[in-house]
């Protein structure tokens, strides 16, 4: 049995399929970072740190000996707890199609937002530098006028090309910017979405957890997400009414080429 203790939960095989499928379905649209960066792993729950390939000097070392200590980036563990009513799972086993999994949906959204936020905005407390904050390019203000978005995004793409970063590029849009884009048609009714897609030449993504937007090189070894344990559902405990579960992952994120992205501020 793994540390997730799934076998201890009073959940049928069909119930686990239901929970896993629901989590997967809700997670994948929201996990914008994984659609743009390089994903490595999963290396397993026991994997604790990412090798940075660098050393730092040791203050005191034995006489006549040179010493250095390896630098690593420890993985961060994230866990979002939720509960499922036992009656709902029993109904699912009877064939119910409208099972209430609202708490699960909210939990997986929280963890997806947290993952995006760590990758794009950074998380100083765990040593993660975010793509937007690490970019050496001047941030570009999106502003209120959505019809000017193509100009801003084109400017960001130009900045990347000027820095020697070729495509494909991708555009991660925070929820507000994404809504604005979907709602806007330019002169002649041409959707803004399509115009932006033509400019970046790659994916245009809804990225909950991002403030504003980020234009970046897709893949290419510039942004490295290392997964220890990939997103998984585990068991905490239960009573006669509910089963308490959690969705969990461990990961690190590091940037090899900060200039391969441009931040667009709200």
């Amino acid at each position: 049995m793994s540390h997730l203790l799934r076998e201890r939960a009073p959940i049928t095989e069909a119930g686990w399929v239901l929970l896993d499928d629901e989590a997967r379905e809700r997670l994948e649209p929201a996990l914008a970072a994984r659609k743009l960066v390089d994903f490595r792993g999963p290396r397993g729950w026991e994997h604790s740190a990412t090798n940075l390939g660098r050393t730092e000097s040791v203050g005191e070392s034995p006489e006549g000996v040179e010493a250095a200590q390896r630098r690593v980036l420890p993985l961060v563990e994230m866990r979002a707890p939720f509960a499922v009513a036992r009656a709902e799972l029993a109904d699912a086993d009877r064939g119910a199609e409208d099972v209430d999994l609202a708490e699960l949906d909210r939990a997986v959204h929280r963890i997806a937002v947290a993952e995006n936020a760590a990758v794009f905005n950074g998380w100083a407390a765990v040593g993660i530098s975010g793509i937007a904050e690490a970019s050496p390019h001047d941030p570009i203000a999106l502003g209120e006028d959505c019809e000017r978005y193509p100009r801003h995004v084109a400017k960001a793409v130009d900045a990347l090309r000027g820095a020697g970063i070729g495509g494909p590029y991708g555009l991660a849009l925070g929820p507000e910017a994404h809504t604005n884009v979907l709602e806007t048609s330019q002169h002649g009714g041409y959707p803004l979405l399509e115009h932006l897609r033509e400019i970046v030449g790659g994916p245009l993504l809804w990225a909950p957890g991002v403030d504003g937007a980020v234009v970046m090189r897709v893949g290419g070894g510039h942004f490295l997400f290392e997964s220890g344990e990939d997103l998984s559902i585990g068991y905490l405990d239960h009573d006669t009414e509910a089963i308490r579960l959690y969705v969990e992952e461990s990961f690190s994120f590091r940037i090899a080429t900060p200039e391969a992205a441009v931040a667009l501020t709200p």
Partner: protein
Amino acid sequence: MSAVGFDQYHEPAEELPDRTRTFARLCASLTEEAEAIGWYEQRMALEPDREARAIMRDAQGEEFKHFCMDLEFLLRRTPLWREIAEGILFTGGDIVEHGEEAEEEAVEGEASRGAPAPGSESLGIGGLREAAQ
């Protein structure tokens, strides 16, 4: 009523899904074919009669064929291991090296496409770059 013993099942057969039982039956067949191949090899080594050896060699060839068919069935149902096998079978050079390389490439490749590592209970989401294209 005493239960009939079926060696290919290590767990209570009635609790196993159909797919697993079929998989286990083919694993048992694979084992039996491999054993028969070894037995014929030993018999041929000791049999002085040329005609008898020829029959055994022909029979051993059949066992090899059955072994290959069983193996192919199992690999068709385990895509990750099929990919690893493709890096090992019918290659020249160091077999162990090919095995290590094939496993590393296949596991990494499958993970980047969204599959969990072997034995993992994760949701198997992995990298989503292909999904975004």
